[in-house]
């Protein structure tokens, strides 16, 4: 199969000169197109750090991250920003959206940066809002949306650039169980219908149950990698 993401001997050491912390320690991880992977492990096991390295938000201490065969750890900061825009979707734990823009504008905005025409943008915004079930909230600002609705807009925004994969660091941590289930259903649907690749970290057993591959980290090392 086709590996979208490959990490080789990936390590990140924080504070190497004072109190070194091996947040990620020699990780070799391969993610194939269309996977729906949960990254789990105790607090401080390195989930966030690993996602940041894969997403090109941080540079590793050693090792590399290849996305479609391209080593992103060698890219300059500005190149990485453009690379992220074109190839990676992000959903963060909370407050993902720009507060002064409406739901629709938050999504459209990404396509503005990609220099899409007004027509293309409008069409895709409508499509994406429908996919996350928020057509009627297009003109609402983030403060007028529930936490779950905000996260759904964030997923729609992450999809706007038609990325290669979406990284989500504890996307449901701030949600109640109903919103959690709803968000997971939408992500699963996008994964199955559109073959969108997702990697998300979580502590929530109900979320882990929905994943089809579970990678467990402890002290920065992969201790198990199972498919279900």
């Amino acid at each position, binding site marked *: 199969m086709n590996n979208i993401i490959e990490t080789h001997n990936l390590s990140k050491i924080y504070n190497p000169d004072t109190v070194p912390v091996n947040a990620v320690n020699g990780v070799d991880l391969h993610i194939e197109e269309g996977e729906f992977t949960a990254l789990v492990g105790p607090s401080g096991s390195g989930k966030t750090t690993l996602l*940041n390295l894969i*997403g090109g*938000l*941080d540079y590793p201490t050693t090792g590399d991250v290849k996305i479609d065969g391209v080593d992103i750890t060698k890219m300059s900061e*500005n190149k990485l*920003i*453009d690379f*992220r*825009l*074109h190839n990676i*979707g*992000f959903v*963060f734990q909370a*407050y*993902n959206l*720009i*507060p*002064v*823009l409406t739901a629709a*504008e938050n999504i*459209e*905005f*990404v396509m*503005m*940066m990609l220099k899409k025409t007004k027509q293309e943008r409008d069409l895709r915004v409508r499509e994406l809002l429908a996919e996350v079930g928020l057509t009627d909230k297009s003109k609402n600002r983030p403060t007028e949306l529930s936490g779950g609705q905000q996260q759904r807009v964030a997923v729609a*925004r*992450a999809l706007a*650039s038609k990325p290669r994969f979406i990284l989500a660091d504890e996307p449901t941590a701030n949600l109640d169980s109903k919103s959690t289930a709803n968000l997971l259903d939408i992500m699963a649907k996008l994964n199955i219908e559109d073959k969108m690749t997702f990697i998300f970290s979580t502590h929530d057993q109900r979320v882990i149950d929905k994943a089809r591959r579970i990678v467990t980290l402890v002290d920065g090392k992969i201790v198990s990698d199972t498919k279900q």
Partner: protein
Amino acid sequence: MYFKLAWRNMWRSRRRTLITISSIFFAVIFAILMRVMVIGVFDKMISDTVSMSCGYIQIHHTGYWDNKSIDSTFEENPKLTTILNNEKDISAWAPHLESFSLASSGEQTRGVLLTGINPTKENEVSNLSKKLIAGTYLADGDKSILLAEGLAHYLKLKLSDTVILIGQGYEGNMAAGKYPIKGIVRLGVPEMNKGMAWLPLACCRDFLSTGKRYTSIAIMVNNRNEAGPLKDRIVKQTTGMCYDVMTWEEMIPEINQFFQLKMGQNVIMSGILYLVIAFGIFGTILMMLNERMHEFGILIAIGMRKGILATIVVMEMVMMSIVGTLFGIIGAFPIVLYFRLHPIHLGGDYAKVSEQFNFEPIIQPNIDFSNFIIQGYVVLVIAIVLSLYAIFKIHKIKAIAAINS
């Protein structure tokens, strides 16, 4: 969209934005008022002085300025008249035949600056007839004299009394004459009010035996800033004609120096005012950067170039400054206009000071629009310079750290 983003961000913290805008608003108003008042005072001082003496530009015989001898005069010249009449920037010009003479009433004697004038042209230059407080204005053929009020008072002379003039005429001739007083004028400049007298040109020429000669031509301009370039043009057109052309700045440098000094002080005062604005704007920038760190982190993470982000933030600051400045300019305008139409007449100490510097104690603001525009530029430049800090900060942002803040 970027503009929309900046505009909405600006109104995100409504109260802070309003405070910033109103601090800019008031500072701009004060800065404009200070500036137009100072310039207005000098406009008055300069125009009072030059209109009654040398004009903004004066043409005289080569060497006359350094040695004001009646022998250093020049003859009427139709070519020169044509040049002057063809210059659009000249609002009026008038020939002068000036000489220091002694004026006597028999009892009292005093040195005066006697000027032979073309009554019509002189009036266009100095509005002399408007300054009459008694009698009537001169006409071409008159053999009578106008005295300044202070001089008449000193000589204890009234209207229709006769004044005796004694002086030195052309090429060593003795000059002496008796002239009835046709009018008395009051001059705003106290020094002048004490020692000036006017005769019609022909009569003055007879008195000084000069024939058809002038000592100088005084030229007025629409805007005193045009004096320099106009002088250059006149010099070019009169080369080889034995004339010197001088501007008011060259003839009365004290006024210009004083003006520059006052403007310097004005700049310092405005500078302090703008420093206050600068701190206000800077505070706003700091708070804004702090509050929005998380959002900036997200934006950079999802692929917004830092340059675009910085542009949006700078746009916000610049828009805020433009709004404040615009309202400031609009707000200052009616105030300035009011004082333009109703000049402030000052008494007391200020009047004494103004007497020393030879002008009427009136404050009438200058309404040149450039004064308003300059303040706008200054505020804009401040906002842009301070925004550099925001640009610098944004370029140092690390996405993850910002998201976690």
